[in-house]
């Protein structure tokens, strides 16, 4: 048996052990008896709907089983999943350990991103600004537009406070992981770069005295969840919400989810299998513009409703400290806020470290500082703005506003009637660029496990496209739980490993900061 198949066997055994143990008991919905009376067209439509329901119910059972294992709550009296506690404690730890770098290093981070220290001869593929853009194209997207609406719906307006706080603390978690990715990245002779948590966990932990099997295990667990994340949040959630946006625009039509899912898979396939890089390049360049338009529209709405902002702020703070029981009380709101914030900005998750590792610099700390701006832009600015629009418009307690992306669209269209069209285009482009970026993250993780052979790579890419179609037909609830499970679980090895390796980052940071304060850096602008 070839090594590739042995590895594939190992991977799928792990996957099945975590989630598939209840599927054998699944009962698909009974076929409708009324089909006999319908004509052929209706029969096909019903068949398609029945297949979609069946897939979704099977998927729901897998997700439920995974949820029990991965979102384990160690203390019954305090229903916080272990992974959410790790994310919260980890982010706070990094912030205190690196002495509030998110605040003291903020101005310097902006200077670096502006290109002040860009040396074109440094090793790497892209500038600091491009690395930030690349990481943001994976994080800014439906997590900001739909995820915020989901957070408010499930956790009430108070969840916004936790989202902001975890965004602020998450900045240093992002700094820690991206600096590590730079330290342990491998620059190939052709100038391309290979880096990310799988590499720093494997090499870094061995340097700290851990034996190879344990270090490799950390890398492997991360890679497995990263592949899952690339199929979930980086793919199915995007496809699901993009389909939902189209449904909102043209109305629900039979077979729409299959058709649109396949169309999305085809368009992503053009870039990742067809190798037509021009499409991806154009999308990546449009994304900052779409972000700008989205933020501008949000600002316009907030200015027009300026009188309602103090009231919204009071509501947010009040429901944060004394939330309604319907939202699961204080803990329920906290968990929702953290889940949606981390899902959106991916701080502590380790995904962005794969993109930041490609930066052109020989100063690992410098790229870490650029990465720190990611959660700030993503969560503190864009998510908060979306939240305020959803609250001042009253969408969060208007049942006909819908859920997820539909609620955000309703909120924006209350003031700007032309906005839904722009939002639909944004949703499509955000979803598309996030899927392309995440296919890269997932593939890097896949290569870490299965190697770089052509066969291994093409299997991943085909699976990735398959999950796009699955995401379009599955229900939002199942998709979002699966996506959360995979993306948040990446933080298990990444934060634990990050804490073990933090002293290495601290030494580098102290040395860098001393040279920065002594004005020893060459300025290139």
């Amino acid at each position, binding site marked *: 048996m070839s090594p590739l198949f042995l590895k594939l066997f190992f991977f799928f055994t792990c996957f099945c052990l975590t989630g598939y143990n209840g599927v054998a008991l699944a009962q698909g919905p009974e076929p409708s008896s009324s089909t006999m009376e319908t004509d052929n067209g209706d029969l096909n439509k019903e068949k398609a709907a029945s297949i979609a329901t069946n897939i979704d119910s099977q998927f729901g059972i897998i997700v439920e089983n995974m949820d029990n294992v991965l979102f384990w709550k160690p203390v019954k009296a305090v229903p916080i999943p272990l992974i959410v506690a790790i994310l919260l404690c980890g982010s706070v730890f990094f912030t205190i350990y690196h002495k509030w770098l998110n605040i003291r290093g903020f101005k310097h981070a902006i200077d670096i991103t502006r290109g002040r220290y860009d040396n074109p001869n440094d090793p790497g593929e892209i500038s600091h600004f491009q690395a930030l853009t690349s990481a943001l194209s994976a994080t800014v997207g439906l997590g900001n537009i739909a995820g915020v609406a989901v957070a408010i719906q499930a956790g009430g307006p108070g969840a916004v406070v936790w989202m902001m706080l975890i965004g602020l603390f998450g900045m240093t978690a992002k700094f820690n992981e991206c600096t590590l990715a730079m330290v342990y990245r491998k620059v190939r002779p052709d100038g*391309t770069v290979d880096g990310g948590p799988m590499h720093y966990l494997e090499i870094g932990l061995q340097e700290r005295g851990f034996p190879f099997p344990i270090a490799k295990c950390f890398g492997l667990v991360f890679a497995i969840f990263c592949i899952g994340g690339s199929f979930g949040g980086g793919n199915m959630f995007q496809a699901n919400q993009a389909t939902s946006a189209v449904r909102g625009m043209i109305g629900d039509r039979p077979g729409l989810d299959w058709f649109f899912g396949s169309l999305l898979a085809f368009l992503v396939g053009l870039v990742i299998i067809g190798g037509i890089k021009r499409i991806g390049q154009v999308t990546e360049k449009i994304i900052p513009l779409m972000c700008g338009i989205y933020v501008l529209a949000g600002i316009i709405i907030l200015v027009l409703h300026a009188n309602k902002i103090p009231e919204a702020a009071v509501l947010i703070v009040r429901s944060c400290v004394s939330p309604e029981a319907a939202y699961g009380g204080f803990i329920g709101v906290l968990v929702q806020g953290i889940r949606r914030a981390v899902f959106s900005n991916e701080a502590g998750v380790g995904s962005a470290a794969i993109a930041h590792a490609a930066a052109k610099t020989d100063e690992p700390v410098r790229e870490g500082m650029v990465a720190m701006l990611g959660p700030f832009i993503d969560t503190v600015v864009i998510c908060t703005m979306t939240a305020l629009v959803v609250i001042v418009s009253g969408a969060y307690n208007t049942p006909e506003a819908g859920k997820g992306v539909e609620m955000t669209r309703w909120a924006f269209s209350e003031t700007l009637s032309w906005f839904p069209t722009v939002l639909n285009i944004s949703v499509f482009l955000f979803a598309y660029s996030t899927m392309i970026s995440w296919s890269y993250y997932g593939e890097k993780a896949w290569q870490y496990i299965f190697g770089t052979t052509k066969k291994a790579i093409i299997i991943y890419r085909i699976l990735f496209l398959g999950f796009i179609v699955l995401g379009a037909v599955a229900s939002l609830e199942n998709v979002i739980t699966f996506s959360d499970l995979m993306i948040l679980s990446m933080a298990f090895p990444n934060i634990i490993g990050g804490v073990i390796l933090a002293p290495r980052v601290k030494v580098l940071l102290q040395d860098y900061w001393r040279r920065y304060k002594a004005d020893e850096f060459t300025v290139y602008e």
Partner: protein
Amino acid sequence: MALHASTVVVPIDFSSASASAINTALEIVENPSQLYLIHVMLPLETMSPGVLLGDVTDASRTAKVTTALKKLAGTHKAADAHLAVTIGTPGLEIADYAQRVKADLIIIPSHGYHGLKRLFLGSVAERVLRHAPCRVLVLRRFDQE
């Protein structure tokens, strides 16, 4: 029995092990022009940040590797060696190249991993052995690759 060969292919991954493979090859051939150094690059990922936002292309990668190969050959007194840069799966590309230049020997370093490391790291040398059109001399390597 001394090993004789007049067309020797040495795959280069720019590790210290591949540098010492050049030295071994120089002991076998009569002059450095009988050496054929090849570096195999992985296919470009069209969704990587370097391609989408930066200026990474196959041409830019080939130019960088060629410069590095020239430098490496020069420092090992093998400036006359033939150089090749290809894109694809390393084991297969090396075997193909050996076929093209009608090599009579390939010299390649290998870790000789087994167990878990073998399962996860795989082996280029093994693939070369399986597809090579000529003799293959495998050198045991102990570096971290």
